């Protein structure tokens, strides 16, 4: 795996560098940031949506199902359990250019089998150190 580097820029803003790409992550103004980019939680949901989308595209390509212009819309809720906030619920709508009809469930299965969803569903081991 490539190294993903996170560097503090200002306030609550960090730049992310990976494989030559660079973008900013920040908190919204309501949460004390300067809103210079998506929040970490939003990025996580965007990652999930993009991953689901990529897997659906792959399935549609092999199954000859139209997918160009496909759209995914997601939202999430935060549960505040004392000092431990977490994303408690993620909801997503997937729109394809044409209704896949009886193949809808297969399309959905393809999306649900993506690496990010599988990771969230199982909960990876996270090992951080200073």
């Amino acid at each position, binding site marked *: 795996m490539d190294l993903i580097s996170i560097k503090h820029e200002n306030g609550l803003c960090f730049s992310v560098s990976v494989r030559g790409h660079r973008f900013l992550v920040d908190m919204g103004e309501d949460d004390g940031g300067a809103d210079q980019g998506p929040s970490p939680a939003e990025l996580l949901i965007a990652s999930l949506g993009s991953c689901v989308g990529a897997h659906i595209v792959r399935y549609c390509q092999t199954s000859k199902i139209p997918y160009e212009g496909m759209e995914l819309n997601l939202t999430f*809720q935060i*549960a505040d359990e004392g000092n431990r906030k977490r994303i*408690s619920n993620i*909801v997503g*709508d997937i*729109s394809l250019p044409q209704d896949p009809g009886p193949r809808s469930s297969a399309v959905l299965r393809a999306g649900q089998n993506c690496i990010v969803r599988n990771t969230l569903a199982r909960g990876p081991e996270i090992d951080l150190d200073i």
Partner: protein
Amino acid sequence: MPQLEIGGKAYEVDEDGFLQELDKWSRDFAQGYAAIEGIEGELTADHWKLIDYIRDYYTQYGIAPMIRKLCKDTGLSLKQIYELFPSGPAKGACKLAGLSKPTGCV
């Protein structure tokens, strides 16, 4: 407790602007709050469909509905809901519906 003035009436709200007294809610409150929330013009039938659904659900169950249930029961997609309430179902629709700040649901 912060107060919000809409149409010449004062309403007690929390720090996020959610109404603290459910029984003080009125359709005039929702319409007046819409302008503060950046919703231009009169609330449409779809706005009211969502607001009424959320209030009915809250009256029945004591909590705000889950988003997926909100979508299914109103027939509106997530995208449509965010087009109607740009700050989202919780910060937008529930606020106009006069609910206290939702936790865990919409």
